[in-house]
């Protein structure tokens, strides 16, 4: 029980620190902006990793789900309830943003029943184009000009909170029956079916969860920048998230965190280089793919990110009881 309370306590301390940090004046607006961006990108990265890493598909439509979340939440805060108390409205808006994106994940998930690999990648690309051109043609949300005057509601604390929720839920999923089914689909879909894995259900769970958190990230993103337009969510945005996933490590929670943090902070640090910064990051990616194709943390994770389960002692030789210790760190 102690071991379960400790991480919870640490997370709470983190939340309190995140909440009072801006008030202390220790971090300026720019640093806050970077911190929020890291959190949003980490959410995007871990949610895309579910589909591209754990399930081994290749989705390039993540920015599309993000756009749906951003627009749905902004409609709520700007158009429908501009006067509602923000402390209540914002979490609801983020949840609804996630929900709308999650619903959009259903048809993409259904299409993944019959197609995979390159073909599914093209379907996700088509989805992205549909969302983008759809938003460009809706006058209600400003068409191609986008939405202006979105209240700045994304604080460091909220970004931190949603980031923790995203990692917690995706960790739960990955270390569950469905998560193992999702990994089995990556390894061998026919064998997975033959071993009783309901691959359709697993694919739906993966796509809906992944797109839900992309929507959450989109909502946070909109309320951070205070301005969104359809071209904020183009294929380049998807590519940016893909870079984080493959740099940090596929099928890894720690890798998602590393990838998002590394790419976001590096992009900021390279600002003085101007156009040359577009050379540094891709070169890094090429080098990494040559020497570590799975990314920094591919298929591995830190043990503190994995759930702990007590395992019944099996009363075998001492060699085997050592094995048990390996299983329960």
């Amino acid at each position, binding site marked *: 029980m102690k071991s379960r309370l400790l991480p919870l306590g640490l997370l709470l301390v983190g939340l309190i620190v995140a909440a009072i940090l801006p008030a202390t004046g220790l971090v300026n607006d720019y640093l806050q902006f970077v911190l929020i961006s890291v959190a949003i990108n980490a959410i995007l990265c871990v949610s895309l990793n579910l589909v591209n890493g754990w399930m081994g598909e290749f989705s390039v439509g993540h920015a599309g789900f993000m756009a749906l979340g951003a627009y749905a939440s902004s409609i709520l805060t700007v158009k429908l309830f501009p006067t509602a108390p923000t402390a209540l409205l914002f979490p609801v808006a983020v949840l609804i943003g996630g929900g709308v994106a999650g619903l959009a994940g259903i048809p993409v998930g259904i299409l993944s029943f019959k197609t995979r690999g390159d073909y599914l990648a093209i379907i996700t690309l088509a989805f992205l184009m549909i969302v983008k051109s759809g938003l460009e043609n809706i006058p209600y949300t400003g068409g191609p000009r986008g939405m202006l005057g979105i209240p700045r509601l994304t604080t460091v604390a909220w970004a931190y909170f949603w980031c923790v929720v995203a990692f917690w*839920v995706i960790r739960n999923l990955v270390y569950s*029956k469905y998560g193992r089914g999702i990994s*089995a689909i990556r*390894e061998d879909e026919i064998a997975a079916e033959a071993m*009783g894995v309901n691959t359709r259900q697993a694919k739906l769970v993966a796509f809906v969860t992944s797109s839900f958190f992309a929507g959450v990230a989109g909502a946070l993103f909109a309320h951070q920048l205070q301005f969104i337009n359809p071209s904020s969510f183009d294929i380049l945005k998807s590519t940016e998230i893909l870079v984080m996933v493959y740099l940090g490590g596929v099928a890894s929670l720690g890798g998602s965190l590393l990838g998002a943090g590394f790419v976001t902070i590096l992009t900021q640090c390279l600002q003085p280089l101007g156009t040359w910064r577009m050379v540094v990051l891709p070169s890094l990616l090429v080098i990494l793919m040559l020497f570590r194709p799975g990314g920094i943390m591919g298929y591995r994770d830190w043990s503190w990110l994995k759930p702990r389960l007590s*395992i019944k002692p099996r009363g075998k030789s001492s060699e*085997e009881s050592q094995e048990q210790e390996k299983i329960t760190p």
Partner: protein
Amino acid sequence: MSALLQTRNLTRQFGGLRAIGDLSLTVDRGEILGVIGPNGAGKTTLFNLLTGIYPPSSGEILFDGISIAGLRPSEIARHGMARTFQNIRLFRQLSVLENVRIAYDSQIVCSPPDALLRTPRARLREKESINASLELLDLFQLGSLAEDRAGDLSYGAQRRLEIVRALALKPSLLLLDEPAAGMNPSEAMQLTDFLRWVHGKFSLTIVLIEHHMQMVMALCDRIEVLEFGVRIAGGKPEEVKANPRVIEAYLGTEGDLP
């Protein structure tokens, strides 16, 4: 003895090729049935039809009293039909334990919301599945390898793990597709003893595709012989061994020789 599995006029057409034609077979509860035949006879296609990987072009499959033709492979697996593959198909990147747990998971009741929020109920199921899977691995002397990657195991251990994974489904019928492929005669005889033990221990019905004749003869209660997707003979091992049609299918007739 009652029939556990029955096919009626089972046919599968691949374009112009009739891989399985009008096949009617019965597998009795508790028996070990051998399916033999030259390469390309349709043995693996038969397994793929039974397990739902291909739907049959026509015909019926009855398993444990229900018609399973057209069901999804995972549904058939959950009804208690497990299989191994001719070319081992483990989840290579995953651990030995995870391989077994994935098959065991089909018996776990845990809704997606339970899993996503890791409720106490979900945690309890997880614990059960780990313990049951480890127990099964221990039984097959694979417990000490539980955390190793399945793809890193030796060939023999991979073969064994594939059978353990199939058993984690708690099947009533086990389909083995050339389990002795790549083994020398003495290893094949060891496998024979192993399979006989598994058959008794888990009170299984087994259908075995195999080319090692010694093994088939020693293990099987009954043998069915296929050639070009059609059943050409069947019966007790000694009957099949003496059947001229079988000898012809395997060795050809004198007239075939130049």
